[in-house]
């Protein structure tokens, strides 16, 4: 009897890793997926928070993919460990704060550890040669195999035929002839393959798999580090960077102002940990103060908060300020007008 070979697939939730897993499933290999949760993943979060996105699908893409493929998916929480990847990437950053090459090596390493623990035989990813500028150039792929210590147990089914044969191919566990030879940035070959497999409704995120490729998000993260005087973050910090308008009217504090009811609710969950403000006389947003604001600055914060509420045209708006220790005060202020808020305040 031949041994049933087993592969662990890195499932991001996008189309490429879905296709890679399908190709290997079709060769009679037992496949299970792992999804690595760094805290920066796009899937779900903004939808979960923002009211206007509620009608869009709120599903987690990786789970959806696994469900479609009929494979198990194990989500691995790496929030803590990932800090080292993001804060000290050996190979540097991409266009924004995305440490893609280090990140890929790290994710494959996690899959490799999972493979060892569960006695699986090899690892598959949806990587395509030449698809992304930095991390998927042909000469970069061996770096990922080496640094993850997956070596030749790492197979990229979509591009396998243009790469050196790996152990699963050499040992005849999979048929190399039936693997892909896709290269480059065009998505045509993947779309055609998706059609052939009868896949529809998959997600095609434009930027990449995470917020770190987003320039606005990266700017907010840089601002956070600069103002704290050190490069460090906690999970709550990176969640809050995904939510609300961020305005820094003074170096010593930043305001996070909710944009809709969903964000109001989300920020409310943080309100015990921050001095926060909301308009008392009119409907309006909740705003958190990150940092320390003096008395005068609290008044400025109240005027900004009032600007984003329904009382923005009123001459006076009452704003309730609650300190972290629970102490409350009400300020009557004139909302700032739009042109009193310089663009530079927006982080």
């Amino acid at each position, binding site marked *: 009897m031949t041994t049933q070979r087993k592969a662990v697939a890195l499932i991001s939730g996008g189309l490429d890793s879905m296709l890679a897993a399908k190709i290997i499933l079709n060769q009679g290999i037992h496949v299970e997926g792992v*999804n690595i*949760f760094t805290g920066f*993943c796009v*899937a*779900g*979060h903004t*939808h*979960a*928070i923002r009211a206007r996105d*509620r009608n869009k*699908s*709120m*599903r*987690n893409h*990786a*789970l*959806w993919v*696994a*469900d479609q493929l*009929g*494979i*198990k*998916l*194990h*989500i691995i*929480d790496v929030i803590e460990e990932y800090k080292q990847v993001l804060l000290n990437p050996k190979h540097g950053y991409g266009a924004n704060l995305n440490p893609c090459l280090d990140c890929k090596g790290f994710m494959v390493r996690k899959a490799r550890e999972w493979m060892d623990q569960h006695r699986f035989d090899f690892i598959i990813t949806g990587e395509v040669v030449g698809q992304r500028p930095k991390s998927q150039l042909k000469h970069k792929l061996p770096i990922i195999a080496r640094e993850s210590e997956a070596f030749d147990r790492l197979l990229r089914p979509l591009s396998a035929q243009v790469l050196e044969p790996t152990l699963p191919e050499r040992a005849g566990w999979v048929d190399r002839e039936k693997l892909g030879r896709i290269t480059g940035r065009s998505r045509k070959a993947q779309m055609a393959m998706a059609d052939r497999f009868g896949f529809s409704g998959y997600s095609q995120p434009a930027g990449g798999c995470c917020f770190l490729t987003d320039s606005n998000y990266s700017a907010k993260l840089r601002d956070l580090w600069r103002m704290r005087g050190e490069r460090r973050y906690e999970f709550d910090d990176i*969640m809050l960077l995904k939510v609300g308008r961020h305005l820094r009217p003074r170096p010593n504090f930043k305001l996070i102002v909710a944009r809709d009811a969903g964000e109001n609710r*989300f920020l409310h*969950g943080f309100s015990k940990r921050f001095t926060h403000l909301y308009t008392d006389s009119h409907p309006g947003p909740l705003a958190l103060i990150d940092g320390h604001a003096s008395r005068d600055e609290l008044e400025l914060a109240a005027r900004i908060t009032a600007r984003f509420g329904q009382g923005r045209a009123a001459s006076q708006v009452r704003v309730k300020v609650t300190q972290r220790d629970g102490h409350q005060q009400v300020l009557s202020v004139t909302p700032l007008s739009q042109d009193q808020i310089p663009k530079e305040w927006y982080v």
Partner: protein
Amino acid sequence: MTGFTLDARNLICPLPVVRTQEKVEQLDSGDELEVFCTDPAALHDIPAWCRIHGHQVVETSERRGDIVVRLRVHKLD
């Protein structure tokens, strides 16, 4: 059968699933687990996770503003 609860409130996707996954690992076949969440995405994600791992969703409901997913653990070994 033993009943368990898990507080996954104020966590957003996919953390409620991650916590469910960790909790179910410690349980036996036939045990029931109630997961309390605030992120509505849990209504899609926990059932999807159950489906692919062979666990059964017994009921989903809303209690005092929380979303509650009750599932029954099925393990092969």
